[in-house]
């Protein structure tokens, strides 16, 4: 389903670009076509993707250097220099609950991790975690294809609805603009279009806005916040997180660490290293990969459905404001009414819809993989270090005015 969707998107973009060609002056048509061509080429631009692979493999190199030269830098479970390290948050909290914390340094290590998550969000999932690297190296790209929701039908239906609404709005705007060209009318048409395009999910979020599409974007957003459909961003990962912490507290030792695929991957690497360099054979060389295979191959949706570390990152990452993918509304083909382009949503491994922050997946689930940045045919998605206040989509953050309006 997802694959079909991904394949269909560029065609769709092309088709509407062709329509564009017949309806608008030649200049726009030419650029729209080249845009569509660029959209089709999007797949080949995977530079960030490769960079991520290199980064993930680089981590193994660092672990390897540690093995060879006793650097003590550590592994993904706890990485740092001398006493200062970023400890695995789940492991650290588990030991805290199990009563194993013997020194305040543990809290410092935990705090460092929390600060890093606030700074970089879930970037560790996309850039450091060895699990996707192992999957990609051994399982090819298919294995890392997105597997966000098991309600794929739900997702696809919502997408289809949205796309239809956007298409209708685009056609409507074009038709109206062709008839009426006075500046005042134009402004009105653009306002209406903007209102629809930003609330494009076909579900009527807001009764107040539903009747009149002339609501300003801002009011609509405020209304929407008031009446938003309750979308749960707490999935099964959080249950696993709670289970891991509770069982550790009861059993008196970090239980999840036993089966943690991150730890097991690194441990397998270390065991292999010691097997090769020191002739140290152990059953662990079989036991650990078997657990890994069960977790990553049998339970394919580990990262999105079960991983408690990812749950922790999502939880703390809600406070992350930096490096968020931001859409330039003027350039975005969908938001400026050129085409029903959905490339960024299609390539996102987390299933985030940048056009609709009220989508099924919260924007804070971003793993900073920059797949959307690479895929955008207009190159209009950026990941600014600090969220921009002007010119770009502010949909994810409420302005002061909105906040005020909401509290009233």
């Amino acid at each position, binding site marked *: 389903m997802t694959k079909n969707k991904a394949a269909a998107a560029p065609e769709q973009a092309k088709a509407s670009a062709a329509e564009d060609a017949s309806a608008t002056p030649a200049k726009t048509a030419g650029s729209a076509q080249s845009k569509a061509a660029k959209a089709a080429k999007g797949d080949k631009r995977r530079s960030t993707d490769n960079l991520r692979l290199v980064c993930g493999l680089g981590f193994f190199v660092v672990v390897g250097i*540690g093995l060879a030269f*006793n650097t*003590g*830098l*550590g*592994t993904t*479970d*706890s990485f740092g220099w*001398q*006493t200062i*390290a970023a*400890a*695995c948050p789940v*492991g650290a909290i588990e*030991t805290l609950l*199990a009563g*194993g*914390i*013997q*020194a*305040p*340094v*543990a809290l410092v*290590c935990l705090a460092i991790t929390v600060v890093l998550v606030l700074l970089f969000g879930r970037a560790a999932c996309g850039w450091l975690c060895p699990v996707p690297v192992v999957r990609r190296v051994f399982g090819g790209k298919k294995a890392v294809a997105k597997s966000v929701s*098991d*309600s794929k039908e*739900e997702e696809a239906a919502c997408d289809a609805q949205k796309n239809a609404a956007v298409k209708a709005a685009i056609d409507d705007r074009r038709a109206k603009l062709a008839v009426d060209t006075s500046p005042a009318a134009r402004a009105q048409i653009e306002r209406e279009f903007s209102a629809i395009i930003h609330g494009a999910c076909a579900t009527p979020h807001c009764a107040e806005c539903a009747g009149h599409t002339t609501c300003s974007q801002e009011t609509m957003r405020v209304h929407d916040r008031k009446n938003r459909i*309750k*979308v*749960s961003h707490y*999935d*099964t990962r959080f*249950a*696993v997180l709670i*289970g*891991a912490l*509770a*069982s550790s507290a*009861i*059993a*008196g*030792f*970090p*239980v*999840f*660490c*036993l089966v943690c695929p991150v*730890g097991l991957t690194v*441990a397998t690497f*270390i*065991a292999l290293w*010691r097997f090769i360099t020191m002739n*140290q*054979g*152990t*059953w*662990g060389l079989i*036991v*650990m990969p078997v657990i890994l295979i069960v977790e990553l191959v049998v339970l394919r949706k580990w990262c999105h459905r*079960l991983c408690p570390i990812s749950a922790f990152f999502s939880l703390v990452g809600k406070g992350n404001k930096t490096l968020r993918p931001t859409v330039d509304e003027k350039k975005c083909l969908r938001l400026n009414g050129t085409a029903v382009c959905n490339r960024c949503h299609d390539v996102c491994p987390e299933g985030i819809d940048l056009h609709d922050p009220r989508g099924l997946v919260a924007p804070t689930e971003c793993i900073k993989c920059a797949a959307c940045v690479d895929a955008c045919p207009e190159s209009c998605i950026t990941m600014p270090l600090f969220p921009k206040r002007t010119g770009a989509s502010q949909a994810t953050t409420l302005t002061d005015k909105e906040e005020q309006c909401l509290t009233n």
Partner: protein
Amino acid sequence: MGITRRDFLVAGVSAAALAACGSTAAYAGVGTSSLVRPVGGQDETTFLAGCLRCDRCRSVCPENVIDLAHAEDGFFEMRTPKMNFHLGACTFCNKCVDVCPTGVLHAIDPSKDKLGIAEIRPAQCVAYRNPGSCSKCAEVCPYDACHIQGGYPVIDDDACNGCGTCVYDCPALVLTAVDSTGERGVEVVTVAEHERG
């Protein structure tokens, strides 16, 4: 997306699996293993409660004496650090203590506290085959805890702190292809195991 029945099932099963894992471990007696732990990790229960299995102590050890417990040492102990005196001996440099993120390893006083206690293994000891032929352990002991009496090595339990220098230098069974099996003429065991006899 809302919580579906399937989500509920996945959550329930995984939480149950973790709970089962934890209770099995508790039932199997986690904290009773007889592994010699790095500096300060001598109380096994506290040690296991606080060990993240992060590998930093093993990585930083300049003597290579810290090894990772293997599947053979018990599933619940797997990946925790243990002392392998066939690979080195502890100098109490405390580098492992410095890097431990939970502080479960802590500095000890080598003149009073013990990692473990060395025990002579007569079946492997060269001196036991031919009295007086070897006195390596007594020569290398940095704490003067090993003496040759009547041609046989004898360990002074009070002076020995389990640093493992004697084990590392023991000439018996050094040429094995696979280092994780077999015993040398002298081996360090935990204090608890030594007392059990």
